[in-house]
């Protein structure tokens, strides 16, 4: 167990750096998760609306009430257009609407011209805004009809809202527990990769230092044992990190780990953890300096994250990107996460989930083979 113990001694010496990275990445995942997108499950499309009522009559106030009941109201300063623009650009607000002065008066007179002034996102013709705009139009149209049918504008709007609120009943065909920790596990793919490569290779670079490897290879210590002990020790360290990460999910949902869904996620992330440890080992075997390691770690982790759908859902990625992504374990990790949570057009399907985790397990074996090939080929080299 010489090599095994060595890894821990090296870890002890580098504990400061390791803990620093650990904290950075832990903070990162906490932040991404708390601000990350929630799932797009149907809750009747609510859009984020900033609203300003210049008319301030009972008709206009009814409209404001309806908007605030059916959509999310965003606070915004209509005078500070830069700020409003920033809110829209960053998807904090989809639609800014001003109810113009004279709204009630015009409506009462059957005049539907120029009731609202609106601003939309630059290049932001999303379904949500189109939907909202059509709702506005139908409110105007319905109210107009009530007025034509002999009501006052105030009454007309009240009726319109009443009718509008008796909405189509929508029900789900299945019961589903939704784990808020899902998003956390989704981003864990990135964190596991970047953390394992950065942290583990800090340690592994020492173990794999050129002159020392040469000395080790000269010894009568079997190379297979050497690499297995190294991987074993590194895995134990990263399992430690992983346990902390997994427990971190409880911050978002205290029952996250007790459900089947939670257990599947834990299982999925464990298999992926092993993949990422192996990737870290490969990187450390191939790369000589710590600068190069941080370069590679970011390329590999961000690259996989973007190609495999960690930051941007797989359903949004083009087929070309996905067909490349398929060759990376993160793709299957995310596929499993999507299926476990029933996100992004996939459904909870235990066969699919097992298949995805199975393919990840296959990557574990394949990556191990790659490591052995590299070690074997490095033993006797063309040049040192």
């Amino acid at each position: 167990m010489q090599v095994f113990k060595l890894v821990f001694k090296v870890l002890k010496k580098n504990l400061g750096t390791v803990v620093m990275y650990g904290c950075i990445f832990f903070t990162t995942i906490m932040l991404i998760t708390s601000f990350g997108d929630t799932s797009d499950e149907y809750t009747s499309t609510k859009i984020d609306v900033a609203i300003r009522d210049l008319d301030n009559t009972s008709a206009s106030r009814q409209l404001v009430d309806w908007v605030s009941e059916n959509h999310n109201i965003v606070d915004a300063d209509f005078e500070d257009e830069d700020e409003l623009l920033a809110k829209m650009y960053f998807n904090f607000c989809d639609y800014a609407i001003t109810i113009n002065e004279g709204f009630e008066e015009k409506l009462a007179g059957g005049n539907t011209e120029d009731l609202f002034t609106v601003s939309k996102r630059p290049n932001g013709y999303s379904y949500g805004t189109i939907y909202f705009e059509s709702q506005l139009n139908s409110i105007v149209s319905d109210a107009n009809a009530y007025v034509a049918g002999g009501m006052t504008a105030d009454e007309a709007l009240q009726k319109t809202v009443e009718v509008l609120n008796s909405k189509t009943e929508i029900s789900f065909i299945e019961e589903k527990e939704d784990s808020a920790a899902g998003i956390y596990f989704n981003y864990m793919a990135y964190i596991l990769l970047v953390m394992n490569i950065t942290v583990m290779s800090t340690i592994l670079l020492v173990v794999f230092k050129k002159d020392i490897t040469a000395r080790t290879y000269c010894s009568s210590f079997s190379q297979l044992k050497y690499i297995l002990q190294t991987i074993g020790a590194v895995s134990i360290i990263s399992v430690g990190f992983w346990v902390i990460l997994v427990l971190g999910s409880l911050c978002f949902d205290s029952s996250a780990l007790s459900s089947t869904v939670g257990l599947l996620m834990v299982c999925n992330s464990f298999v992926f953890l092993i993949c990422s440890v192996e990737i870290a080992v490969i990187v450390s075997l191939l790369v000589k300096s710590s600068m190069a390691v941080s370069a590679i770690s970011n390329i590999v982790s961000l690259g996989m994250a973007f190609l495999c759908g960690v930051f941007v859902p797989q359903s949004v990625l083009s087929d070309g990107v996905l067909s490349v992504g398929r060759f990376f374990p993160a793709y299957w990790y995310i596929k499993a996460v999507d299926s476990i949570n029933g996100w992004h057009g996939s459904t909870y399907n235990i066969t699919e989930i097992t298949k995805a985790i199975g393919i990840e397990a296959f990557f574990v074996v394949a990556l191990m083979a790659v490591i052995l090939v590299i070690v074997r080929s490095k033993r006797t080299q063309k040049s040192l």
Partner: protein
Amino acid sequence: MFFHNFKYRLLQTVRAKEIMFWALGFTIILGTLFYAAFGNIYESEKFTAIPVAVVTEKEDKSFDELLNALSDGDGALLSVQYMDSSKAYEMLEEGEIEMAVIVDEKISLRIASSSDSVSVSIVSSVIDEYTSKAAIINEIAKTNPKDLDNAIKALSADITNAITEHKLTDANMNGYTDYFFNLIAMGIMFGSTFGLFAALHSQGNLSALGARRCVSPTKKIVSALADNLATVVSVFGCSVVTIVYVKFVLGVDLGNRFLLFFPTAFVASFMSVSLGYAVGSVGRLSDKAKEGILLVFTLFGGFLSGLMANSMRQLVEESAPIVNRINPAAVLTDSFYALAVCPNYDRYVRNLTTMLVMTAIFTTFGIVLSRRKKYASL
């Protein structure tokens, strides 16, 4: 002497493959990945007919007519299949249809958790509109039948002019462009590592190389200036390549004022290098700790400014705006954003000023820390 120093520092940075990779190679690779990830996003919002199953429990002729009208022709909203409820639920579970419309006393929807929420909203609003119009006609027919004709006329009139649009900007881009602003900023922020090495190599108490240079007769201020200038030039060079790559190779729309990206990048290169130099001049920390600090500035700063999730900067703006004022990565990214998206220069000028102030602070800090010529210990 100045040019001698300048020339060799330039050669040194350009040949420092690993740092070059950061400032240039990495940004280009990541940019390409962003492009791959987001290039498809607009397309995914393009419309295809929504597959819907209709389960008729109670005949409603006028609703059927409405469905026929909506599923007719090229730009049809719906693609409708009639079937019984069990078949419909089965298809719903398989994800073959988005939802099932149940036509009974009332019209209702059955959906699966995988159903696309926008499609559900669209169909439900179609149904809503149908039911509300029916309700209006019923109501008026009951309460005020003499105005029924007027009401029906009003209902069928097209409302087109109720909404006037006030455009906040002429720029035609969405939030995803911010990833590219972040990317260019990240490349420049990595330049701080260049600055770090410039500092480490110039000071006797930090490296053997620095010690050697300290004993040379070149004035320290001259060599420091030459070093930093050469470093700025190489960082700026990298950012020019990145900007050109993003704009012309990837074809990302960077707005009409994109030429101003270059002077901005130049100022930012100064800021980033002086940051690295200042951190590098702190005597007590180990090299690893210094690299760690810069990593926090670049990657964690980048994360806060939206490198990994583009709305992060606005979120910070709304919860702790001070962070956005002092996070160099955010200030830099935001000035690109201001140039590309904002209709005026207010926000841009604010950001640019912040960068200049930061540069001044970092430079002063660096000079004060590195002024000493003798060291208590090496």
